[in-house]
């Protein structure tokens, strides 16, 4: 019985691509976005019966229709971008910092505390104190899980996730403490009349300072990750902890240092959210952006300039969906639904960039005999 057992080759094989040129990769991403938009259009049509193209046009108007709307879109984009920039070094190190939400909130609490208790300081000094304290608050919140990760390898995904909720309760605590007027269960607009501690308008534009700060951080982070020794160490630790040890990198130090930086930038996002945008603090100051920014950072492959485009796309969808909601009498949670669908497609499309799908017959046409 020396008969050869012929095992059939599977119909579909998957192989890792060596590399793919950038244009082709962008094409795949663009296509996936297009497919996602078509699917959303079908869903919009089947729910509302409205012409989906008109709906998309009104989305555009919602985001960029007037100068004011454009600025608000810009403000929210840089907010999301700022958090994404903060997460980039942690994620590049493969440290799953799911805790941005909490780090933003404690940064926001620190800012609000300065605005409330240090009203009398000279403006420049007040801003310095606000900046430093929000950085420290965020950094402390970020470094606690890092210390345990470095020392005892405690799971950081779950630790940072829990820290979010501790921060949310801490925010509720301060909201109850600072509530104004009494019984409203909200802090209200802080320093409404005096505008002490509010970001000043640059060149007459309210949110220009936000944009400037975040752009500076974006450029800084890009250079830090790409050209500095620290950035190199982060990349090595992210690729392989053992290689890093072998190369003489102090892994504990890198983890702690990187999370201090990551937390501090998320803390600055809290500063921007409170002092530069909302002028108040509540549990929704972070508003889920800490989670959305994770997706931004991941999809951008930690390239902070790519993050600009992705943040803009997500905020555009949000603003657009709110506009649809008001125009067509729907509710604005449609935006989360549409964002979810589009992100699913973009996430899925990465597969086709990283892998080749090979069909049995396609590769070796006639060797079935």
């Amino acid at each position, binding site marked *: 019985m020396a008969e050869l057992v012929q095992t059939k080759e599977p119909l579909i094989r998957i192989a890792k691509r060596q590399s793919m040129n950038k244009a082709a990769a962008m094409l795949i991403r663009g296509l996936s976005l297009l497919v996602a938009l078509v699917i959303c259009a079908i869903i919009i049509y089947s729910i509302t019966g409205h012409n989906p193209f008109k709906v998309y046009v009104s989305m555009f108007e919602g985001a960029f229709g007037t100068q004011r709307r454009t600025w608000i879109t810009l403000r929210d984009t840089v907010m999301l971008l700022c958090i994404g920039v903060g997460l980039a070094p942690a994620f590049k190190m493969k440290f799953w910092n799911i805790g941005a939400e909490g780090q933003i909130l404690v940064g926001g609490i620190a800012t609000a505390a300065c605005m409330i208790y240090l009203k009398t300081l000279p403006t420049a000094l007040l801003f310095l104190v606000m900046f430093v304290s929000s950085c420290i608050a965020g950094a402390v919140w970020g470094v606690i899980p890092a210390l345990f990760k470095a020392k005892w390898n*405690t799971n950081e995904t779950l*630790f940072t996730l829990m820290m979010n909720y*501790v921060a949310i309760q801490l925010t509720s605590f301060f909201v109850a403490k600072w509530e104004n007027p009494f019984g409203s269960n909200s802090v209200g607009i802080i320093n409404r009349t005096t505008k002490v501690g509010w970001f000043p308008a640059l060149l007459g534009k309210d949110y220009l300072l936000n944009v400037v700060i975040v752009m500076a951080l974006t450029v800084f982070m890009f250079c830090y990750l790409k050209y500095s020794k620290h950035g190199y160490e982060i990349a090595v630790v992210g690729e392989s902890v053992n290689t890093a040890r072998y190369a003489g990198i102090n892994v504990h130090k890198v983890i702690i240092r990187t999370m201090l930086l990551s937390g501090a930038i998320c803390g600055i996002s809290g500063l921007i959210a409170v002092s530069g945008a909302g002028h108040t603090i509540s549990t929704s100051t972070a508003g889920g952006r800490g989670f*959305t920014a994770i997706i931004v950072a991941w999809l951008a492959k930690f390239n902070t300039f790519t993050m600009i485009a992705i943040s803009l796309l997500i905020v555009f969808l949000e603003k657009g969906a709110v506009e649809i909601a008001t125009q067509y009498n729907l509710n604005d949670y449609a935006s989360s639904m549409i964002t979810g669908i589009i992100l*699913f497609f973009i996430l899925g499309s990465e597969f086709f960039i990283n892998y080749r799908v090979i069909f049995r017959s396609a590769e070796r046409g006639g060797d079935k005999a």
Partner: protein
Amino acid sequence: MTGIISLIQAAIVFGTVIMFGAVGETVTEKSGNLNLGVPGIMYLGGIASLAGAFFYENSTDSPKRVVCVLIALLCAVAASALGGLIYSFLTITLRANQNVTGLTLSIFGSGVANFFGGSLNKLAGGVGQISVEATSSAFRYSIADSVNLGVFGKLFLSYGFLAYLAIVAAVITQIFLTNTHKGLNLRAVGENPGTADAAGISVIATKYIATCAGAAISGLGGLFYVMDYTKGTWANDASIETLGWLAVALVIFATWKPKNVIWGAYLFGVLYWMYFYIPNLTRSSQEIFKMLPYVVTIIVLIITSLRKKREQQPPMSLGLSYFREER
């Protein structure tokens, strides 16, 4: 005394929601998939059951209780398993990152649920609040409603049948994971998929089934929340989401063992509601009390990582995608 009884009652109702969520997530995580989409899945389960019950109740004049319950259960299981399927397809077949996919699923689920929840509220008209009284009361029907059994009845028999089903589900899952062949295979896949694959276990099928089944169980938490906790209504606030994350926390707290999930869920319930029963708390210090479940989870997480007992560790390949070609 009545204070303690009502605290325990509140804790058990609260605990049931997160028990379903955590038992489902345990099954999923034991197969190596860290599904952070639990809040989204619970949202999907909740809204689907509500929508199903709403349309059934509106289609007949005298809705039958059994049909109400069956429709709600079926809708919840189907919708949440579908959520699990999306996650599985992206992470297992398309090898997308698990954390990112899970978070996206949470965004998607909350969007879908609140969108349709808001629309249903509008559809219901009138006061602008949907209510599925028949279904909700069927889910909330308890023995203590009809027979007065004193304190014993209040403590143990005053809940809808799902509260008991949650315990049954946890026990069955525990037995399944530790004492059956299939359960052993599932755990093998979560610990070391390469070895499991070599031993002839289909890694992909196991992960798909575990994730979808886990999602279906988690979705029942959403159903219980809508039908029992909020009594068949819908509010667009983030409370299901909070409970969903607590369910994720509970899995860690229970060190991935369904039997611990049972008492852990009730303990979380007590911790969560305790502030309500401690006299003379100001509103701000109540908020500090509400931190307790999360702080306790962090402490458990730290202790398990300190002690490094092998039976208390997360599944070895938790959060990692399996590439057969990269073995």
